[in-house]
């Protein structure tokens, strides 16, 4: 399925992600965390399919399990003592649940960033911030691009060296280490040179100079205005909810939370709408497309 949300104006995309990632990091109510995690993974699966599922299993699940184990090993606060650890400190229910919660939060933020880097491509990023903070946005987009590029280049170098019989998996341990160091040194030289090349190239094109215009294919349409207004409203509404502690939930010293009534549930519902916005947009567009298609 095509991701329609990417075709919205970059400002809408960026605003959406900053809101969602921000609220994901702030809200620790299990219901809101569940909403965010679910929406992030559904959106990822909707747009990327198998890759997102793999990402979940490979990174997010271990993350949750890891923090669920690590947190109670160092944090012993909480009223419900389950048993005593060999160190003599208590193992508490609250610290385990808090570990799961913070693990889920990190996993959710990772998933949102998976979506972020797909939607906000480096050209969108440069478009948004090229004028305001030219050097920083160039450095950022170069850095974000650097890791995949580095990997590709490294594969090339390793291939080339294999073809002349200097594979990193051949020879004695010492030879292999030497070979790996050579590859590393080649890569460092390449990346430094590449960075300078890019910077020089951008400079020669007058990047960041006053009065320089940049081509972009983005148009701010009516739907972007509506989307932006909607996001602004959600952001304001949820911020008020946080101030009024409608999402209130605490783990220590014992678990206490705002009881779920119509008001608090409504705040959660608004959060659900905010998180699910791209999923809904994609589904609606898909339906529309199918409808037009069937009439033809």
């Amino acid at each position: 399925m095509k991701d329609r949300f990417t075709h919205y104006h970059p400002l809408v995309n960026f605003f959406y992600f900053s809101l969602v990632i921000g609220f994901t990091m702030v809200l620790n109510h299990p219901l809101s965390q569940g909403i965010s995690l679910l929406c992030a993974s559904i959106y990822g699966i909707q747009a990327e399919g198998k890759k997102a599922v793999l990402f979940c299993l490979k990174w997010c699940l271990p993350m949750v399990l890891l923090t669920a184990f690590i947190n109670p090993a160092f944090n012993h606060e909480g009223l419900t003592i389950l048993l005593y650890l060999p160190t003599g400190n208590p193992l508490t229910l609250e610290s385990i649940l808090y570990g799961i919660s913070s693990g889920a939060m990190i996993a959710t933020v990772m998933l949102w960033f998976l979506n972020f880097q797909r939607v906000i491509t480096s050209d969108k990023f440069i478009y948004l911030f090229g004028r305001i903070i030219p050097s920083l946005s160039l450095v950022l987009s170069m850095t974000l691009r650097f890791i995949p590029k580095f990997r590709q280049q490294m594969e090339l170098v390793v291939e080339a060296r294999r073809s002349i019989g200097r594979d990193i998996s051949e020879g004695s341990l010492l030879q292999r280490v030497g070979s790996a160091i050579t590859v590393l040194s080649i890569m460092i030289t390449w990346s430094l040179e590449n960075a300078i090349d890019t910077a020089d190239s951008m400079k020669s094109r007058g990047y960041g100079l006053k009065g320089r215009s940049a081509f972009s294919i983005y148009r701010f349409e009516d739907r972007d205005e509506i989307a932006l207004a909607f996001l602004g409203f959600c952001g304001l509404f949820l911020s008020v909810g946080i101030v009024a502690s409608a999402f209130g939930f605490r783990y220590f010293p014992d678990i206490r939370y705002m009881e779920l009534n119509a008001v608090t549930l409504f705040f959660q519902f608004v959060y659900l709408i905010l998180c699910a916005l791209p999923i809904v947009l994609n589904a609606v567009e898909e339906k529309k497309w199918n409808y037009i298609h069937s009439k033809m």
Partner: protein
Amino acid sequence: MKKTLSILLILSIAVLACSCDGSFGGASLQEAIEIPADGIIEARILSQIRNENAIAVFMGTSEEISYEWTIFGSDIQEVKDVNLSVDIRERKGQEVIVQLSQEEAFGFSALLSVYLADKWEYQGATGYEADKPVLSVSLTGSKNSILNMSLDGTVSTIAIRGDELPQASSVVETESGREETPPSDIENDPYLSAAQEGDEHLYTNGKDKYLTDPVPEGKPKPVEPEHQEVNAQTSLSCTFSIECATILNQLDQLDSDKLDLVPSDGVIFPETTVTFYEGESVFDVLQRVCRENKIHMEASWTPIYNSAYVEGISNLYEFDCGSLSGWMYRVNGWYPNYGCSRYQLRDGDVVQWRYTCDLGKDIDGGYAIGG
């Protein structure tokens, strides 16, 4: 159209926000209330405190001495008008007479804190009714002493006198023995510290290798946990208690999530005689007492002091009541200047774990922190 819509939206947000009250239903601290001239607190106010599960502080003065009542809503069993005014007279720093105006039971127990004008040099205090000890009084306060006692109104006239040093029988023996025998004997006693330190303690800049200043003469020397020899055959006994009255003097500083955890009389574990095995340290006993009595306790091993550091007891942690707060221990009236894993207990010792909100100054232990 757009304007009216946005105004409507903002209004709806405001209405929703107001319908959420920001509490989890736990205890909350109310602003301090001045006790009226006649001292009568109406039943209406008490029932409000009870219904809101609030903690209320009532302030009053008796001539020059000010006092505070701290009432926990969860303690209130019976609601009626009570007279909280108190007449307090101090007799030359020797004795404080507290005279309640209320002549019958309050229907709840409340903490009375009396702010004296000067500093009492006592380890603790006891309240007497007609020369019979009726309640124990906790002494806190940095510059001037605060007497904290839990009252329920059944005793209306209390004379408070400072306790003499709690003394462990074995220490008394050795100390009295010291006066009679030549000082070389103390040096032979591996337990007590003498003016000259033995060779086994490597002092640099006056400190030992675990950064401990010289132990005052006549006080027990630290026994390193790795040299600890527990003799499970010999059972000894000591008096053990855990209290946090200092928190009750400044509940406004306390992390509001922890208000529920503070006992209304400040006593987490009342003075109890506990048995231990010869050679065990204060920390060993604390750990066992907490475990047996289902009291939460967290400690971490600190290699540079070669001792466990008690971070929190009963979920009340260091820094929970201001940045200078934490747990300290006192044995026989002395706050040791080394960790609790290095303090080897002797038969009859009196161990107190106390919470401080001011680096020990409010519980007469400022010296143990060192400088």
